[in-house]
């Protein structure tokens, strides 16, 4: 770890050492372009975060792309209805890897106040894997900026040796687009109506890529009965070199 401290000291004097991995992640974390895509009042906060007062361009995310082909992160900003979720999944499938999802606000995370209604999806992670969740109704722009910093920390922790979207073993997956059925949303691989209108979904949520998910569902949650807590990030699982130095972890 003293190598790390030496490296930081040398960087302060203008001598730069790096690895390909670090350089690559630095490039990716510095230009995380969101998709121009909002669903409800959270989108208003997202717009405020992009405007001059909060200025999301300080983090390299000022270019809201109108096409999913050019976007890196999908900010699911608002209430995802059952009629809208096929389009959300289709847009996510059209994004090139590496791609990330930020679930902004209570509705996108869990259904929020509409959780018991007939028309709102009980968390967008039932359909796409979510990297960062933001609580709030709606979250303030600072919370969105913090989620962006959290995503950047997660990108910093990635290694080209084991990311799912790099190398020969490219196991990037298309996520199944739900179909409109007579009783609700039907998903390939699940018998009957997977997400019924007036009933509980029978499929578990996707494991967050921040917890090592590679497109699989969380088998430990068989049914979404009760208010099962979402898996949270373990504290200290994401940190940067500068935080390590600041915390004294680097001797």
């Amino acid at each position: 770890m003293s190598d790390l401290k030496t490296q930081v000291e040398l960087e302060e004097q203008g001598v730069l050492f790096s690895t390909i991995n670090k350089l690559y992640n630095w490039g990716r974390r510095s230009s995380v372009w969101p998709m121009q895509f909002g669903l409800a009042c959270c989108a208003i906060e997202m717009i405020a975060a992009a405007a001059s007062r909060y200025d999301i361009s300080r983090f390299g995310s000022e270019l809201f792309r109108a096409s999913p082909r050019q976007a890196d992160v999908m900010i699911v900003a608002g209430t995802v209805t059952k009629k809208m979720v096929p389009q959300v999944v289709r847009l996510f499938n059209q994004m090139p890897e590496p791609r990330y999802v930020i679930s902004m606000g209570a509705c996108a995370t869990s259904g929020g106040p509409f959780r018991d209604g007939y028309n709102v999806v009980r968390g967008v992670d039932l359909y796409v894997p979510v990297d960062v969740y933001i609580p709030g109704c709606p979250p303030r722009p600072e919370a969105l900026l913090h989620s962006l910093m959290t995503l950047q920390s997660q990108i910093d922790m990635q290694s080209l040796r084991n990311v799912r979207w790099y190398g020969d073993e490219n196991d990037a997956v298309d996520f199944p687009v739900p179909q409109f059925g007579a009783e609700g949303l039907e998903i390939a691989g699940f018998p009957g109506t997977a997400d019924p209108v007036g009933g509980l979904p029978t499929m578990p949520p996707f494991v967050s890529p921040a917890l090592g998910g590679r497109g699989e569902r969380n088998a430990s949650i068989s049914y979404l009965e009760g208010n099962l807590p979402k898996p949270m990030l373990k504290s200290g699982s994401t940190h940067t070199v500068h935080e390590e130095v600041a915390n004294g972890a680097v001797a």
Partner: protein
Amino acid sequence: MALLLKGELRSKLQAELPAALDVRWANQATAPETAEHAGALPVLIEDDAVVHAAQIVPVAHFLRDTLGYDYLSNITVVDYLAFSIMELVYQFYNTTAGGADVRVRVRIGRTPEACIVPSLSPTWPGANLQEREAYDMYGVVFPGHPNLARVYMWDEFKGFPMRKDFPKTGDKYTHVTGE
């Protein structure tokens, strides 16, 4: 074409279109609110005019052409599951004279054979989407409607989610009330 006072439409209809009034609840307006009636039938006692479903088109035209209530603001449905009644509330405004709204109510049954009201859309285009929404959410059928398709739910969906007997989704709030 002056503004109507509260409850005045009923006497106007009594004079002009007496066959249109649905008198099933008319005489209970003076009924005492006894203990056994509390929370039950008094819910259905109204100052507004309750008309037969088959007569809603002439009543609406009477309001528009004779009384000057030319803006159909809203068509709402109320599902009285305990009484097996589906109530449509038509809300009219007078855009010339202003003032409060006038409501006309239609009470029909909840079964598919009884949940039918003639459409206002051919002669009152503003009713088009309102009637489609009433069909989509409550299953009220409007014969004569030019395009009675679903608005909010997808076309493949069967069922009417705003009906009181539609299954509940809940596990977050409904366990508190024990439903």
